[in-house]
């Protein structure tokens, strides 16, 4: 009996969470996939009708906007947040005196909810209340900064707010990475008289590759599931210029009673996530086999 317990305790302990994941993650993915093939409207129906919902989805200009926005937002957000985070981390790594305080200040936005970030930036960027009004009151009457209400530029305000929120977190990740590089190598390089910028580009940054990957994965999933920031900052507007796939899905499922359409958009979102995560998992698993 004890022997049996010894052998099976890990399995028994893991079983409930395994079961929960099986049902609530994979089970519901399968359910959503099923519903996305039906003509469900207000309530789910289960007669399979083929790919009608996907055809409707790809014929919808609003979905086009949402997907384009996802790429614009995702790429800009990930690249800029990583570059900015790296620069901040390198600057903080110069043994400056107030590092602790500065680190906290940069990390603090991460403690806010996206709703707070979105609302604060909505006020800052509102042409009638925020930055534009302030600069105009200083006497620069011609100053305009109306990205928030300009349908062509509004998506960049979402990028701006998201970067403000997340770059401090990326900085903290990179700072930890910088500190983990072997000091001996750096000292050896310095003895050889290699300039500091070369030390960073040729030694430190390449040795931080795993950190880059982690930062990328964290930021990519933040970008794809972004919902609350858009809702608080622009409400998807002007028009639907800042719609993202997540807000599209919400509108279909909860405002319009079009569950089939929502399910098909959810499946596409999942596929986008998979194209990012699967190569990562593959490389992780392969490196373990080596």
């Amino acid at each position, binding site marked *: 009996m004890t022997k049996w317990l010894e052998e099976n305790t890990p399995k028994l302990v893991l079983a409930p969470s395994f079961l929960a994941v099986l049902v609530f993650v994979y089970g519901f993915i399968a359910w959503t996939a099923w519903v996305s093939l039906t003509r469900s409207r207000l309530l789910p129906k289960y007669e399979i009708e083929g790919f009608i919902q996907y055809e409707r989805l790809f014929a919808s200009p*609003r979905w086009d906007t949402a997907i384009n926005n996802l790429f614009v937002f995702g790429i800009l957000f990930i690249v800029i947040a990583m570059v900015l985070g790296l620069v901040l981390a390198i600057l903080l790594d110069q043994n400056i005196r107030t590092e602790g305080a500065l680190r906290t200040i940069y990390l603090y936005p991460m403690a806010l909810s996206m709703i707070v970030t979105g609302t604060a930036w909505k006020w800052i960027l509102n042409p009638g209340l925020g930055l534009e009004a302030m600069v105009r009151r200083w006497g620069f009457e011609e100053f305009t900064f109306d990205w928030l209400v300009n349908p062509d530029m509004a998506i960049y305000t979402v990028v701006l707010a998201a970067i403000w929120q997340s770059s401090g977190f990326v900085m903290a990740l990179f700072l930890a990475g910088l500190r983990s590089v072997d000091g001996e190598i750096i000292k050896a390089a310095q003895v050889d008289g290699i300039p500091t910028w070369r030390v960073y580009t040729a030694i430190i940054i390449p040795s931080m590759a795993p950190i880059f990957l982690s930062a990328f994965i964290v930021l990519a999933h933040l970008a794809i599931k972004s919902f609350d920031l858009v809702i608080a900052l622009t409400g998807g507007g002007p028009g639907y210029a800042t719609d993202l796939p997540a807000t599209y899905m919400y509108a279909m499922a909860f405002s319009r009673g079009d569950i089939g359409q929502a399910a098909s958009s959810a499946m596409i979102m999942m596929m986008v996530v998979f194209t990012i995560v699967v190569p990562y998992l593959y490389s992780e698993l392969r490196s373990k086999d080596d």
Partner: protein
Amino acid sequence: MKSYLMGAVSSVAILVSGAAVAGPEAEVLHWWTSGGEAKSVAVLQEEFAARGGTWTDMPVAGGGGDAAMTALRARVLSGNAPTAVQLKGPAIQEWYEEGVLADISDVAEAQGWADVLPASIAGHMKCEGTWCAAPVNVHRVDWIWANAEVLKANGIEMPTTWDEFNAAAEKLQAAGIIPLAHGGQAWQDATVFEAVALGILGPDGFRKAFVDLDKATLTSDKMVAVFDQMRTMRGFVDSNFSGRDWNLATAMVMNGEAAFQIMGDWAKGEFLAAGKVPGEDFLCLSVPGDGFLYNVDSFAMFDVDGADKIAGQELLAELIVGQNFQKVFNLNKGSIPARTDVSLDDFDSCANLSADDMAASSANGSLLPSYAHGMALRGAQSGAITDVVTAHFNSDMSSADAVKMLADAVANSM
């Protein structure tokens, strides 16, 4: 002796508890949780209690009813629907098709609803010939609200055609006043759009386009003209309108910053709450053109088990359409009663105008459901139209492109 006594006591206890559960019962799902609305629902609760009923309140606020609809879906799927749910327009028939609505024809016929409700509004309350919902109020959507002082100072009359409106707006713009107070949210864009469409297409064209989804009307030259007028209107709003709430736009009219607002009569509540007098401080007029666009709130009755619940449902339906509730509720909410035989002496001049127009429109067939407020079409179709309207209003899309997109979007939403 002792056991006999015990028996007597327990049988009394059973009788008492039996009496407590008997009597009408109702669980009511609604999202009237803000000031005036909550007060209005409380009136209904009191009346219900006075007739011996037990009311279980189930208010679910948030998302303009989205949160309540999500709660409703969960309740229906688990086979435990509430007695009555705040639902409106074609959503009632959509739920009926899921086979979950009750038949309250007995009450409706006993109370003579067919004689006191306008025919087109009664149509929304019926599911394949049987009554399945009870109307609460009639909001008129196609109103223009104006600041009386601003109009007077600039020598402008309330416009009765869209050309007059455009001329007045240009004059105001030259005088440095924002002609049209507007909030750039999709539903507000849609509200202005349907008001313009009613004026330009006329009542028959409006019905063909937004009730029957007739393709020829949706792609007609008149629809291009509707979008042209929307483009003109875009020039009359201030540059900071994006995302503004409707009540802030109303406040702009109130304090003279802007002259006009096109909005349903819930805007009147804002004026009245600020102590403004209709006819003196602010003016109300229907938008140019004939017709009357209504937004009717109602309670749909769901299939429930048990005599006490069915009794509660019937009592609730009777009270909702009863004269007293229709009057008190609508005084609080700013709308007018759905039944036409309620005395309007206590109502203001705008409400009286609304009631007169409703009677006239009902007689000549121009009493029409509002598409922007979910009365004319199901969610998927009205949402598809709103997408096009708001995309056109918030970009430099041409009217011809918008009309083509409109036809495609409607076809794609089926």
